[in-house]
């Protein structure tokens, strides 16, 4: 399954300062679907290069990170249970405080 991942608000620093990633990831053995929960653990292993604790806490993202699936807050699509589809766009963005 082809997905586009984007990191912003400083999270890109955890993956060699690369903001946009075109990835190919398939559901794990025995699973029919790929959920956000599966994707997060895949991202942690395959995309995040340093300080994974700045990206995740437990099996979800750390506080202060907004997750957007196709430009919509993942709270509206089921958070970790969100089922991903071909060509979906997933954005991880850290909230900014500067001004």
């Amino acid at each position, binding site marked *: 399954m082809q997905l586009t991942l984007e990191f*912003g*608000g*400083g999270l890109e620093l955890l993956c060699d300062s690369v*903001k946009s990633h075109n990835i190919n990831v398939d559901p794990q053995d025995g699973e029919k679907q790929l959920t956000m929960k599966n994707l997060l653990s895949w991202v942690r292993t395959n995309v995040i290069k340093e300080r994974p*604790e*700045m990206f995740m806490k437990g099996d979800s993202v*750390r*506080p*202060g*990170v*907004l997750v*957007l699936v196709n*430009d*919509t*807050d993942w*709270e*509206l699509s089921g958070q970790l249970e969100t089922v991903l589809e071909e060509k979906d766009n997933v*954005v991880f*963005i*850290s*909230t*900014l*405080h*500067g*001004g």
Partner: protein
Amino acid sequence: MDFNGVEATRIRQEIDHLKSKKRNIEQQISALEAQLNQLEVNSSTVCPQPLSNGDLSNSNGLSPDMIYRYSRHLLLPSFGVQGQANLLKSSVLVIGAGGLGSPALLYLAACGVGRMGIVDHDVVELNNLQRQIIHTEAYIGKSKVESAAATCRSINSSTQIVEHREAFRTSNALEIVSKYDVVVDATDNAPSRYMINDCCVVLGKPLVSGAALGLEGQLTVYNYNGGPCYRCLFPTPPPTNACQRCADSGVLGVVPGVIGCLQALEAIKVASLVGEPLSGRMLLLDALSGRFRNVKLRGRSLQCEACGDDAVLTRQTFSEFDYEKFTQTPLSTVPLKLNFLSADDRISTKEYNEKVRKGDAHILVDVRPSHHYKIVSLPNSMNIPLSTLEGRLPEISAALEKEVNKENGSNTSLFVICRRGNDSQVAVELLHKLGFTSAKDIIGGLESWTHNVDPKFPTY
């Protein structure tokens, strides 16, 4: 003290005296201007001057001057007289007169908001002027509120400007915010953002929230018309080290400029009751790629601790809440000062300077990121950023060996420096663990070098 010194002191005193007199006169002028504006507003709304038949210009409450000044607004069919009249009756509070607040205040003053409050406790510094465009060189060292208010008055003397030259705290927040219709959060830290949100929830005020860092910006409207508040989105504060500051990470001046302008736009929409405010949505700016992204956010959370159905947030609980403890971040922008190494493992910049002057054999490792090192560095230092330190130990070993051979002795010391003396301590601790037990931290870093050794050494 020699004659020049005495003369310089006398001149400085004379300058201070004149400045204080000038301040007094400026205050008197603005008070009189406000009085005059009030009279003019009253005469145009309460007892309209009779004009020629068929001229209805005064029936809408706008004076001829106002009609002329705001004509481009009045010509907009979707904004028009009603939008302008709403704006003139409204009041907006801008918290923070920095990178976001500067453009927001300029546009809000120009557009004809009736009353505008400005909160900030800071003074203008030279390194603000790259982005805080409301301030000018003449105001360096003076209150940001005083400076911003003067600029706003010079743009539009008919807008009433209220100066709150104080830090925004739970002790004064309710009293200040209660006097305004709309709040603009133009602050630069996490505890302020939670505090302003909660205050707006308690008082039922819409909150226009903007943030910028580096080359990215974010904008949304909270607590508007049943929409989500800041805590609905971020119930738990982020870890302290996830909160970067402009003073550490940098920011391209125009980025908060863009977001601040958009904050003014949202405040104008909310205050004039025109358009569709950015509530339940967020605008994300990636300046580097020139992309705006408008995303759909969750609605109000029923479990929200501020605005949820079972929330217990009241005036009382708000004023007792410790936002610094909650976010593990100080409200003031004073940089972090770590102090965890023992005194034996540290030397002052003066002591280090002595060693250099005596020609003591040593290696100086500067652990700042390389783009910091390029700004300014001490002579004969080697740049090994903290993040790469572990992998580059052989370079330090080689440099030490070379120095030992050169001096034909074994007392070569290893010193570590950074910008303020925090990362250098982390580096020294790491070096000790990895076998470089003689590594010493230079206390206070390059900032201390400027303060205590060489005042001409640039700070940034």
